[in-house]
């Protein structure tokens, strides 16, 4: 499998959030502002990268019977590392992400990638896959948080842009998160279905 295809499948074709619909908890909770979204995305990418590397290296030794708990422990350790690093170097991000950093452990994307990919492929490919998936996840977070911030609090990167028109506050609150994500996924499905038809038509 050539490296490039491995990398960009995570971003568009098999985007973990918008296509595979994994890890919706942090996606909904954290994307009130773009900075939070990007912070969470990068943290998850770091954990994904680390766990993919370790698991692809140690893939052979772990008995298949108990591989899920082992993966969880490895991922948990990476998550704690990230948690401590964020607390140390950017307390503001830590306050806003709050409980969702420890919850990266149970984020289905990481466990999914580890289970489906990392344990079976070579180191180089699983690194690429981790990066692809991580960037896809961050992209999805960025998209959702941009929409929610612009509509919800009339600002981008905390700088007010909509002037005197009062922003639609519901997008900053939970109901807005659900609805916004619902619409984005619907649009993604709409386009993937349309392009699929075009390809079928073309073939």
């Amino acid at each position: 499998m050539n490296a490039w295809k491995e990398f960009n499948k995570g971003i568009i074709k098999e985007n973990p959030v918008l296509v595979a619909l994994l890890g919706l908890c942090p996606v909904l909770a954290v994307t009130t502002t773009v900075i939070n979204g990007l912070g969470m995305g990068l943290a998850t990418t770091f954990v994904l990268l680390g766990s993919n590397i370790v698991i692809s290296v140690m893939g052979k030794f772990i008995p298949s019977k108990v591989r899920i708990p082992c993966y969880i422990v490895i991922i948990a350790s990476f998550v704690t590392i990230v948690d401590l690093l964020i607390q140390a170097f950017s307390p503001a991000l830590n306050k806003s992400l709050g409980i969702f950093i420890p919850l990266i452990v149970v984020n289905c994307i990481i466990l999914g990638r580890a289970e489906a990919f990392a344990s079976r492929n070579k180191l180089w490919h699983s690194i690429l896959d981790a990066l692809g998936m991580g960037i896809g996840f961050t992209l999805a977070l960025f998209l959702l948080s941009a929409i929610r911030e612009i509509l919800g609090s009339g600002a981008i990167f905390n700088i007010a842009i909509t002037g005197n028109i009062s922003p639609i506050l519901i997008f900053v609150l939970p109901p807005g998160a659900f609805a916004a994500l619902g619409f984005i996924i619907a649009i993604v499905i709409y386009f993937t279905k349309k392009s699929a038809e075009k390809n079928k038509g073309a073939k």
Partner: protein
Amino acid sequence: MENTKLIVSYPPYTKSKDSIEKVMYTVVFALLPAVVAAVYFFGLRALALIFVCSISAIGFEYLINVFRKQEIACFDGSALVTGILLALNLPSNLPYWMAVLGSFVAIVVVKQLFGGLGFNVFNPALAARVFLLISFPVAMTIWPIPFSVDMQTAASPLGILKTEGLKAANSITLWQAFIGNVGGSLGETSALALLLGSVILFWKKYITWIIPVSFVGATLAFTGIFHYMEPLKYASPAFHFTCGGLLLGALFMATDMVTTPVSKRGQLIFGLGCGLLTGIIRLFGGYPEGVSFAILIMNAFVPLLDKWDNYSNGKKWRLTKMRSVIVLTCIGFFSAFLLYMTDNITKEPIKKAIERVKVEALRQIFPFEFSDKDINIAFDKNGKEFFEIKNKDNSLRGIAVETSSDKGYGGEITILVAVSPDGKVFNYNVLSHKETPGLGNKIENEAFKKQFNGKTLDGFNWKVKKDDGFVDELTAATISSRAATDAVKKGLEVISNKYFVENKK
């Protein structure tokens, strides 16, 4: 006889004259008294709003029909009913673009996305009203007073009850509220018009009598019990009957056929549930008007009410062996060691980071510059932390303390208040609060904070203007402003007890 083509179709061949159009246009007819009352009390702006809502509702449904290549069904009256009902739920001075946004949510999101007429689970007009209430809290909670020419605004009776308590609310005579001469949304105010309109619906049997009766009954019973127990604290059931959206909700919103249970039993439970929830939200909840939330929540229960299915059992599941537990523990130890290493590296940075946050907050609230070294932390008898800022010659330049008040709208508000050595407030900084965004969180703005600058504990009446104090509260956020004032006052008291009492002694 030979050339007549016969059509074979299903019995029965004669059908009642009833049709969706007839049902919907009768509901529109039943809403006319309320529309006339609204225009009478709130002027032509109300008529314009109703017009805008209805046209945009029908327009959106037309677009959806065209977009999804369905045959055009937007004139069957259901879109018109949704438009008028939505308009009756809005204040008459609502900007038009918000009304159109409401129609968009009602028709496109809540109704068509769920499959169009007959399949939507939530009442479109109601969901749109709640959407607008949450999205634009300021615009949706200011109600123009009837007959007012230049749109003076005041809180609705329920709003007054919620913020000012019963004493103020009783100033509104029940008769005025009944005929509608009181602040509120277009349709809510005039209970008389609503009852008049609903007579035709009951007579033609287009709505069941079970839901309105059980709904209003449960609300009055609930509020009645609490009124009986504490007449001074809780308003009388008659007040709850005439004010707020109870009648509009019970007669027109909760009886929408599509989003309510089909069976009689289900309708009874639905009505009682709505009544109970309205009572709870009105007496204890944050929002003054509970009807729309109550109906939306009960709409969610409708599928369950209709479906008492027996519980189907699950399938078998496998067991895992002992060996795996051993491997699991050794992996655990390996990662424990890894974490011990990282914790050592990051222990100091974390302590420093917390420290920096505190200093950062202090720097914001003191008008003068100071370096980290000048800060010294003192404790009073019960362990309360004080930040003292020292001058070069070790004399006191300012004191800061962290205090909180739990009377905030959404719960606890903690602030860091800075005071000068002679007891004058410099400034304060809100550390954490759960006030509603857009309303309560304005206590963080400079405009509100400036009022406390230079004030002392006894030289300033620490109350909001409404409670005849000096602080002018934020519009539509009285509770939050009162809580913020209370927190600052507490800070001053704690500092004065520690420093000034000791100096005086």
